[in-house]
């Protein structure tokens, strides 16, 4: 129970770091848009939904995080793009917070279940070997040598589920995307303060 509570606290703290820190301001005429850390963007015509991380005015680059769910693991990759390479940014403007609240909990199971299945098989095999070696009649993963495999595995799987559930829940759905061209006659400009 303590592990779960600490994981929830960690998850909330982590989710908080995804938002409201590094920003980039873009403008065109009377229009001003602020892209904040943690907001979803698409770059050029790429369909990947990326999480904006920050803007470096010195190197004129933006950093994004690609978090995508795969059945047995969640891919997390940090990418850097030079703004000169970007024709347009698409900014997600629909309310993803409400859907994330709704989907966060079932999404934890979506992340945890496949890994738990694999972990179950590993524990089963390890337990079988343990039974042969020690001569015990039952498999108890919380005791003896098995607990050294079971506990870290369980913490990893649960932690992975809790950490990745929130951002992947926010990615759900088609979304509404505001195109912000950075090249051409209708280009928006980066505001430098």
């Amino acid at each position, binding site marked *: 129970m303590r592990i779960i509570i600490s994981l929830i606290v960690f998850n909330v703290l982590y989710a908080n770091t995804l938002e409201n820190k590094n920003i980039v301001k873009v403008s065109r*005429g009377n229009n001003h848009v602020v892209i904040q850390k943690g907001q979803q963007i698409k770059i050029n015509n790429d369909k990947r939904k990326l999480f904006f991380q920050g803007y470096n005015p010195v190197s004129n680059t933006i950093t994004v995080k690609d978090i995508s769910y795969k059945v047995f693991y969640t891919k997390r990759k940090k990418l850097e793009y030079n703004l000169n390479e970007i024709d347009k940014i698409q900014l997600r403007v*629909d309310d993803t917070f409400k859907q994330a609240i709704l989907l966060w909990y*079932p999404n934890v199971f979506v992340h945890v279940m496949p890994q738990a299945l694999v972990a179950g098989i590993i524990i089963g095999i390890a337990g079988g070997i343990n039974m042969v070696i020690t001569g015990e009649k039952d498999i108890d993963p919380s005791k003896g040598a098995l607990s050294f495999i079971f506990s870290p595995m369980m913490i990893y799987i649960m932690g992975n589920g809790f950490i990745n559930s929130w951002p992947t829940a926010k990615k759900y759905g088609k979304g*509404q*995307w*505001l195109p912000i061209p950075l090249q051409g006659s209708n280009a928006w400009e980066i505001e430098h303060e």
Partner: protein
Amino acid sequence: MNNQKTLLISLLVTALAIGLVETDVIQFNTQGIHAQIDKTKSASIKFFGTPTQTSFNNLVLKNNIDGEVIVVQPDALIMIDNQDIKFQFKAYNPNENTIIVKKGTNLQLEYKLSEIDILKLYTVEKSNHTTRLITIAPQNIFGGIAGGLIGWNVGIGAEFNFEETMGSCMLGMLAGPLVLKGLKSAQNYAQVQSSDSWKEIHLDQWSVWSKE
């Protein structure tokens, strides 16, 4: 043991009641109240959005071919060109010939009318399609079974106790179909909004109507 019997009887009664309602043995009044439409009134002026005390912020468009007039009032849902964003119309600025639109709480944008080709306006004609919260459909049965099994497992995982296990099972059975139904309703809502309930206005055939 009495509690178990009461719970089982309650479950059976509830299941029977749901069965009777869903098979239409017991029917509720499904007819709603509809406002009467004055068909004699001319349909050449259409209003979108919420009427306000002043018409200062309204965008009034007149069709150059058939003379149809459209009044776009604040809070009307609009889409611009090929963007899939549903904006709320806020105001028309006649000095700069721009419209001000809003999305969510902190995104406000100004668009020049001369740069817009197509304006889509959401019509308030609501479809007669209504979604009941709980209906028996394959996805509900699947959700119920899945939820029930999860709930049952949670109950057994702690310590076998009939009431707690059944309670968890019931909660799971309710939660499963409700979540699935919610997702389905959201999908239906999105389909209704994005299909034929948007009036497309090609601005090259319309002009902004001044009151003079």
